[in-house]
């Protein structure tokens, strides 16, 4: 149980992402230039995010 608890807590931390997802889905038209920039900036930021770095041991 103790080993699984962090996973449960992590799943709870996904909720903000899901709320953002819900916001994205409200989009019914093409992205505005500001929204396009925000998406491109998020993609660029992910390149250096720790969670996105490949595991060097695999």
């Amino acid at each position: 149980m103790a080993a699984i608890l962090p996973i449960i807590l992590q799943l709870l931390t996904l909720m903000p992402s899901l709320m953002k997802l819900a916001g994205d889905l409200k989009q019914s038209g093409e992205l505005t230039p500001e929204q396009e920039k925000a998406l491109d900036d998020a993609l660029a930021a992910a390149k250096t995010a720790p969670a996105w770095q490949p595991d060097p041991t695999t």
Partner: protein
Amino acid sequence: MTSRALQPKPRGVIVALLAVALVSCATMPGSDPVVVNSEKTTQVAFDVFDAFVTLEHNNRAQLAAVSPEIHKYAEVIRRNGLTWLGTARSLTKAYKTNRTPENKASLLTAVSVLTTAIAESQKYIAQANRASASSP
């Protein structure tokens, strides 16, 4: 507080949201459905990929015990996900500039790659969720 009380239901939420994302054809008048769908899919793909790699990164040891396949697919996303997303963005911009059948076909192919990866990522997120739900 018990683990049952803490247990979220992300799988159901994700399935519902993806169903809306991938099936919905509602677009604003004047908007090109191809562009709207590709931009929406790109946004959703990034959100799902980011959630998946973050979940796996923060719980690597525990999830490896559940299934080594979770780590393997997280690595696939880490090594290819941003390239797939970048390709979809570039092809979306190209199509918006020049709406030819060729550009449309290339964009639809890129979106299809993202859609497949979304489904695979969601499958492994659900696997992690099932593991947490079935724990004593």
